[in-house]
């Protein structure tokens, strides 16, 4: 059975055209197994978790904790090191507002890159306003990859206390040399956070090997539901950190004048969590596991190379970045020479080709590219070469339409 049969939305039509979903870097579509798991929860064992002693709550709690185990396994982490949040953004905010506030001080340098998503910039800008940390940014090389030499220079010369970078760019699709940069930081006892939002659905991640202190991603970009984010944190650090939000679930004792926090991981999960979506997320991870990374990577490699090969043949577009084979996601960002990104996305949309136009939450990066907006096409396992051909054909039509 071809893989796209497992994703019901892929069989919808828009304006009579078959849906071509090319916005997977924003969010992926969902396999039927995950949708089933979500429905099953509400139909069969909806209850609050960790609270009441009753059989329904037992099942809900057990399933909720099962997902935590599966996520721990997915990252080669321990169960207590996995915190469920709402998304990548909340995971990074949690780290900046607890670890950052608690263990960084005025003048300490937090090192980011100019390609970071706003979610990995704004929490640090907030901390800068609040306690006076300094920010430095790793530049990109001409191909759109983090410049290793530039990173090394900053790490060697500045008082860097914390490194927070992405593993891959959501605009270029470049998979950075993140392992090497983490290693460099570790050797200098710098704390590290790795944003794997873009690669989590594309290659396996092992926090033991990476030896990062924190790692974050969103379920909705890896065939999972919206509303679930993951924060991996090193156990000893999570234990030292103050709690984030206060309320039920995260406390041990509450007295009139003070409280003690619950043990990990509950300390960081205040209030009723997103039980249904966390439970359903397990099926997404099982789905990936059953496909195997070898299979996923083989398909994606073919798609990436074909996409780039066909796009490079078009002489009327500007492409940002480079596809260095084997180090690239099936993503490409570009502009037509004679039409604005929004107009391109609008016209493709009429043909049921779903792409994103804009700045993709990376204003600093777009500033450095010197363009107000780009069109981004991002693929995943259920896309096909035939769909790429449809895209190319339509880009030619748009170019001709806008020709003077």
């Amino acid at each position, binding site marked *: 059975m071809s893989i796209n049969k497992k994703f019901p939305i892929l069989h919808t039509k828009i304006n009579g055209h078959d849906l071509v979903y090319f916005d997977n870097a924003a969010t992926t579509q969902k396999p039927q197994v995950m949708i089933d798991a979500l429905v099953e929860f509400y139909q069969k064992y909806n209850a609050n978790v960790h609270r009441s002693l009753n059989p329904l709550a037992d099942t809900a709690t057990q399933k909720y904790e099962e997902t935590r185990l599966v996520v721990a396994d997915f990252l080669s982490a321990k169960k207590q090191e996995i915190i469920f949040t709402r998304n990548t953004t909340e995971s990074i905010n949690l780290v900046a507002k607890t670890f950052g506030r608690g263990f960084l001080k005025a003048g300490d340098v937090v090192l980011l890159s100019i390609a970071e998503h706003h979610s990995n910039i704004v929490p640090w800008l907030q901390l800068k306003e609040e306690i006076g940390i300094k920010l430095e940014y790793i530049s990109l090389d001409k191909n759109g990859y983090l410049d290793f030499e530039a990173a090394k220079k900053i790490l060697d010369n500045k008082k860097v206390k914390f490194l927070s970078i992405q593993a891959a760019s959501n605009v270029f699709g470049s998979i950075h040399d993140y392992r090497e940069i983490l290693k460099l930081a570790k050797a200098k006892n710098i704390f590290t956070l790795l944003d794997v939002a873009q690669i989590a659905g594309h290659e396996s991640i092992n926090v033991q090997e990476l030896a990062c202190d924190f790692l974050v991603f969103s379920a909705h970009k890896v065939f999972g539901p919206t509303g679930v984010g993951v924060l991996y944190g090193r156990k000893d650090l999570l234990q030292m950190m103050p709690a984030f939000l206060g309320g039920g679930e995260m406390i041990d004792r509450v007295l009139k004048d003070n409280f003690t926090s619950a043990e990990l991981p509950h300390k960081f999960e205040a209030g009723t969590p997103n039980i249904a979506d966390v439970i359903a997320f397990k099926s997404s991870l099982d789905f990936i596991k059953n496909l195997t990374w070898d299979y996923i990577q083989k398909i994606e490699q073919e798609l990436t190379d074909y996409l780039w090969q066909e796009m490079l043949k078009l002489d009327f577009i500007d492409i940002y970045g480079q596809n260095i084979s084997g180090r690239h996601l099936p993503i490409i960002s570009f502009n037509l020479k004679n*039409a*604005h*990104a*929004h*107009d391109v996305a*609008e*016209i493709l949309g009429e043909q049921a080709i779903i792409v994103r*136009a*804009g*700045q993709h939450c990376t*204003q600093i990066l*777009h500033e450095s590219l010197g*363009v*107000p*907006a780009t069109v981004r096409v991002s693929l995943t396992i259920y896309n096909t070469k035939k769909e790429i051909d449809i895209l190319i054909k339509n880009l030619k039509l748009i170019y001709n*339409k*806008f020709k*003077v």
Partner: protein
Amino acid sequence: MDIYAQNIIDHYHAPHNCGRLTEPKLSSSQVNISCGDKIVVDVKIEADKIKELKFEANGCAISVASMSLLSDYLLNKNKAEVLALKYQNILDILGVPVAERRYKCVLLGLLAVQNIILKAENQTERTWDDLM
């Protein structure tokens, strides 16, 4: 009906009233941050009426064509008439069925012009929602 009618594309390629005015003039710039669209508008108002208007824009076909068509429409209109314009009026001037998700593209120019007038009169400037 195609929103990228030839008329819209013609205005995009060769907008009317493009450029800057010399002093004395009133100006305003407006950006649509989510799209990266930018516009600068200069006007000269005499006897309560818009006598001259020029603009420079960096944006999509819809925002540039909207401002271009609007710039012709606005000449010799009085301030009250300009301030009374809303989203639907611009859609009527455009004459193509633009989806509401492009409302900022449609309104970029109008917002800039209305805020020039409001600023000169020391009144509160408008935001996108005020024009919907």
